[in-house]
C-alpha cells in the first residue's frame, strides 16, 4: 500500500559531470493524480532530472523520493512506467514479446501478463500489430509501443519524456486522450515536453526549469496567466500613440497591430480612454492572456 506522500518530492537535487553542472538545484513537488508538465529549453537538465528520478543516473546531491520512498529503492520502481526520450526497443522482437519481457521485469504474474499486454496494446491502438516485429514499425508506432510499455502493469506514476516527438497530429491527440484517461484512473503523469500547447492542454501543474533549477512552478493559470496584454488596431499619430501607451506597459508593433504587454484585463478600459482622450481612433481591442509559450519564452529569456 502506497502512503499518501506526494508522487514526487525532490529537494536540492543536483547532478554534475566533472565541472559540468547538468542539474543545479531541483526542488519539486508533484501531487498524486496530477498531470505535471516539466518544461525547459534544450540543455536545461530535464532529461537528466527524469533519469535521476527513475534510477538511471545517480544524483550528485540533494534528495529525491517517489511516494515517500528514495528513488534508489527498487521496490518503488514496480509502480513506475517510463518512456525514454530516445526510446528504443528490440527490433528483432515482436511487439508482444517486448511487452512480455517488460511484464516479467515488473514482476507480473504469468497469467496477468497476457491480460496486460492486451490492455495496453488496445490503449495505444496497436492490437493488430501485436505479432509484428518492432523493426517493421514506423517511428510513430514504436513510440506508441513505448507508451504501451510504460503503461504496462498500470503504474501509479508514469514518466513520459517527449511522448509525442515522433507522432503525427492524430497520434498526438491520441496521446492526450491516453493521458486524460490514465489520469482519470488516478495515475500521476510527469510529462517532459517541448510542445507547450500540448502541455497547456493536459497538465494541471507545470514547472519551468532552466540551467538545472526550477524558475517557476504552479498551475497553468498561475504560470501563464500572470502576464497579460492588449492588442489593438489604432489610427492616429504614431508618436502620440506611443507616448500614451508606454505608461501602461511594453509597446510593440506588428503590421497594423499595436500590442501593450503587461496590462491586466481590468485596466484595458483605462487604456482605451487614454487613447480616445488624445484623439486616437480605436478600431479593434483584444484583451489577451499570455500563452504558456509566451510565458515560457519570457522566463527563459530572462535567464539568458
Amino acid at each position, binding site marked *: 500500500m502506497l502512503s499518501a506522500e506526494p508522487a514526487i518530492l525532490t529537494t536540492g537535487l543536483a547532478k554534475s559531470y566533472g565541472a559540468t553542472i547538468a542539474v543545479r538545484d531541483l526542488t519539486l513537488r508533484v501531487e498524486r493524480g496530477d498531470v505535471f508538465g516539466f518544461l525547459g529549453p534544450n540543455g536545461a537538465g530535464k532529461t537528466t532530472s527524469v533519469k535521476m528520478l527513475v534510477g538511471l543516473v*545517480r544524483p550528485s546531491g540533494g534528495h529525491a523520493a517517489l511516494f515517500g520512498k528514495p528513488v534508489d529503492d527498487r521496490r518503488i520502481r514496480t509502480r513506475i512506467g517510463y518512456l525514454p526520450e*530516445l526510446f*528504443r526497443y*528490440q527490433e*528483432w*522482437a515482436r511487439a508482444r*514479446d517486448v511487452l512480455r519481457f517488460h511484464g516479467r*521485469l515488473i*514482476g507480473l504474474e504469468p497469467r496477468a501478463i497476457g491480460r496486460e499486454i492486451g490492455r495496453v496494446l488496445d490503449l495505444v491502438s496497436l492490437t493488430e500489430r501485436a505479432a509484428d516485429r518492432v523493426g517493421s514499425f514506423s517511428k510513430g508506432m514504436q513510440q506508441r509501443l513505448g507508451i504501451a510499455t510504460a503503461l504496462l502493469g498500470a503504474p501509479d506514476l508514469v514518466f513520459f519524456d517527449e511522448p509525442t516527438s515522433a507522432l503525427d497530429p492524430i497520434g498526438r491527440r491520441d496521446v492526450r486522450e491516453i493521458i486524460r484517461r490514465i489520469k482519470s484512473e488516478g495515475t500521476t503523469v510527469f510529462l517532459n515536453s517541448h510542445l507547450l500547447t500540448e502541455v497547456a492542454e493536459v497538465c494541471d501543474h507545470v514547472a519551468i526549469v532552466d540551467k538545472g533549477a526550477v524558475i517557476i512552478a504552479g498551475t497553468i493559470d498561475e504560470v501563464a496567466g500572470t502576464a497579460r496584454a492588449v492588442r489593438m488596431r489604432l489610427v492616429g499619430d504614431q508618436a502620440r500613440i506611443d507616448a500614451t501607451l508606454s505608461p501602461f506597459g511594453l509597446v510593440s508593433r506588428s503590421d497594423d497591430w499595436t500590442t501593450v504587454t503587461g496590462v491586466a484585463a481590468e485596466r484595458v478600459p483605462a487604456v482605451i480612454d487614454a487613447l480616445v482622450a488624445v484623439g486616437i481612433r480605436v478600431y479593434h481591442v483584444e484583451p489577451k492572456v499570455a500563452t504558456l509559450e509566451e510565458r515560457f519564452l519570457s522566463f527563459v529569456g530572462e535567464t539568458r
Partner: protein
Amino acid sequence: MRILAVARMALSELVERRIVAILGVGVAVFIALSAWGFSRIPTFQNRDGTSIGHAAQLLAASSILTFVMFLFLFVYAMGVAFLAASAIATEVESGLALGILSRPILRVEYIGGKWLGVCFAVLLGALPSVTLEFLVVFWTTGYMPPHPLAALASFAVFGMLVATLALALGTRFGALASAIVGTFGFGLEWIAGITERLGVQWGNDGLANVATAIGLALPTDSYWRAAQWAVQPSVITAAFNTRDAYAKAGPLAGALPPTVAMMLLTALWFLAVLILAMRGFAHRDL
C-alpha cells in the same frame, strides 16, 4: 526471476536474429569439409605405396584433429568475443537499456542474466559442434580422443572466459572496442603460453615468469592446452609426463591437463571479473 527473463531475452535474440541458424549452417559446412578430409587419412600411403598402418593413421588423425580444433577455436573465440561484447554495450549505446534498467531490476541481475544467456549460447555453439567433430573423426578414422568429456569441458571454459571478458568490458566500453580487446586478449594469452614454454626451454626464468603472469590475467591458454591434452593420444601424454619434459619438448608440443590450482584460479577469475563489472556498472550513469 528477472535474471532469467534477461537471459531468456538474450537467447531469444540469437534465435530471432538467425544467428543460431547461421552458425548451425557454418558448423555443418565446417564438419562436412573436415569429414571429407579425415576420410582421406586411411588412404595415406608410404612412398613404396603401402598403407601407413593403423597406428600411424591414428597419430595423423589426432594431429590433424588438434590442428582443426585450433582453427575452430580461433574462429570460435572471435565469434564469442563479438557476441558477448555486444550483449550489454549495444543496449547501452542504443538506449535500449534505459527502458530495461528503469524497471525494478538490479544492475547485478541484468549483468547476471546477460552472462547466463551468453554462456548458454557459448555452450550451445561449442558442445554439439565439437562432439560432432569427434564422432566424424571416429567414424572416418577410428580415432577417438582419450578424454572427450574433458575436451568438451575445456572448450566450454575457454569460451566462457573469452565471453566473460568481452561482456565485462562491454559494461564500460563500446561493443566494437570490447570485442576487439576480448579477441586480442585471447591472442595475447596464446602467445604468452608459447613464450612461457620457450622461457622454460631456454632456461630463461624472467621470460617464463612474465609470460606466466600474463597468462594469469586471462587463463584461456591453459584451457586450450587442456583441450589439446584431452585430444592427443595417451602415448604422447605419457612421453611428457613431467612439466620439464613437457616444456623442453618445445612450445607447440603436446600438453598436460590443467592443475587443480589453475581450476581454482579460473573460478576466482570468473568471480573477480564479474564482481568488477557489476560494481562498475552499478555506478554508471546511463
